[in-house]
């Protein structure tokens, strides 16, 4: 295990090369590459703002003071931008090994570096969403706090990529053997998007009388709920309604680490069969 981690570390240059290659291919296809990748989340944000904010009044649980700090629009953007990255990870995870089959079957490197490179590329793309997010913060009058920037932001980013890497390791290896995984992931990604309270404050579910108690617990066990609440807590840290509760916080930390452990264990377990199938 430790020697394996060392081997991956020794091949960090290869990871860097693969990440740079993917970014190069992605952004050189069109001059407006970066603008295009940002346009989709922006359009989505506006659509969701109209449907959830204006039509369905999903912002009614937002505290009044929070409305002055960027309001529901900043709330949406701060969740949708990291979700774009996470959705992209989920989307590409099943193919992380298959797309590199030629390299994997000719080059002797620790196989983990291919999922790591896929997630690494997404991390860089996530960093590239920040200028857009900061524009929103600036124009909507968002106020970052020390608590948000020093606690919630690093925690959210680390956990998001920990769980992202775990899922990529898990899905990329299983998908080589059972190709149905890709389709399943597409459905799961939809469910998780709506289930992780990206478009509405989680309180709307937790305070609702129509939702049974067991479902509320299950809802909070989803590690993504806590992670995305943290992403928004960066801008709304003072409000108890908008920061993750104890269950959500615990399941975000424990759940993400658990997914990484399970993902890596599965990856190593299936490695021999995966190499034969590629």
């Amino acid at each position, binding site marked *: 295990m430790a020697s394996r981690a060392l081997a991956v570390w020794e091949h960090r*240059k*290869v990871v860097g*090369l693969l990440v740079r*290659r993917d970014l*190069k*291919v992605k952004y*050189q*296809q069109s001059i407006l590459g970066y603008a295009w990748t940002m346009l989709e989340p922006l359009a989505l944000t506006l659509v969701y703002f109209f449907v959830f904010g204006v039509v369905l009044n999903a912002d009614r649980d937002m505290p009044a003071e929070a409305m002055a700090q960027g309001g529901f629009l900043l709330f949406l953007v701060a969740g949708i931008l990291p979700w774009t990255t996470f959705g992209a990870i989920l989307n590409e995870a099943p193919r992380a090994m298959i797309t590199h089959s*030629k*390299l*994997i*079957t*000719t*080059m*002797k490197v620790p196989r983990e570096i291919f999922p790591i490179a896929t997630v690494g590329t997404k991390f860089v793309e996530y960093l590239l969403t920040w200028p857009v997010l900061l524009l929103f913060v600036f124009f909507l009058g968002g106020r970052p706090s020390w608590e948000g920037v020093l606690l919630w932001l690093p925690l959210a980013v680390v956990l998001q990529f920990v769980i992202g890497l775990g899922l990529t390791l898990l899905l990329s290896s*299983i998908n080589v*053997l*059972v190709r149905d995984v890709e389709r399943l992931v597409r459905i799961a990604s939809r469910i998780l998007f709506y289930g992780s309270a990206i478009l509405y404050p989680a309180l709307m579910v937790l305070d609702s009388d129509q939702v049974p108690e067991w479902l509320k617990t299950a809802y909070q066990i989803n590690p993504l709920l806590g992670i995305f609440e943290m992403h928004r807590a960066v801008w709304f840290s003072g409000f108890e309604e908008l920061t993750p509760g104890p269950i959500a916080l615990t399941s975000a930390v424990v759940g993400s680490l658990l997914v990484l452990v399970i993902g890596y264990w599965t990856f190593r*377990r*299936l*490695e*021999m*069969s995966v*190499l*034969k199938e590629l």
Partner: protein
Amino acid sequence: MAQTDYGAELGSGPVIEAKGLGVKFAVNRRRKRSLREMFIHGTKRDPNAAGDEFWPLRDVSFEIARGECVGIVGKNGTGKSTLLKLIAGVLLPDEGEVQVRGKVAPLLELRAGFNDNLTGRENVYLVGSLHGMTEKQIDERFDEIIEFAEIQPKFIDTPVRHYSSGMKVRLGFALISQLEHPIMLVDEVLAVGDKAFKRKCYEAIERMLANQRTMVLVSHNEGDLRRFCDRGLYIRDGGLALDTDIEAALAAYNEDTKAEIAKRKKAEAAKKAKKDGTGGKDGGQAA
């Protein structure tokens, strides 16, 4: 525990050492079960599943010393390429182990790693770096690589997807043959390219061999094998049948092939005789 070990040190011992190598493939429906098994039973094997396994290679042991050039001969589908992949470390053995001391230059799939959307130049730097070359080394050899690959300067900055398959393979060979790794694994790549390029490849390989490097070559071309190799491994039915000089290995292989052809002819003749005996009725059924 089956494993592949790589050490960087170059001792006096064998460069490649295989002990009881075996690889198992699942046949038909077993694949699904093996997935489930891994989660539920761990590494313990299901005793009922023994009949569904297929061993393309089993119980293969040999040692290859530094500077040797070993040819692997055998029929299609007897595990030659599998053996090469095991040595390259891109396939893990189910049984036994293989130790390789030194870095390996794999001439297995020459286009491997080329990205269609990047230019020839970008691909050379990408794949070269993936195989452990430094940027400086590539800078120094870039012109040589392009010249060897016979790529016209105007094409080097166009995306590789516009290259012909021959151009890609030439570029791949030109690049990988620049690697200074002490071990080379070659899988029938000599069969590609036109005559002039083939000759250049031969010369490049001979130059590399002169440098005390070790080569393992899988090929069906007897000329290639005789030209480069001094030792031959004859693989038959997934096992190592012979480990001698290349002439003896080829002779044994040819003898077995001849015997097989003779057997097939005999069987055909017998079938024909039977058919003739039963008359036209049978022929009508066959059609």
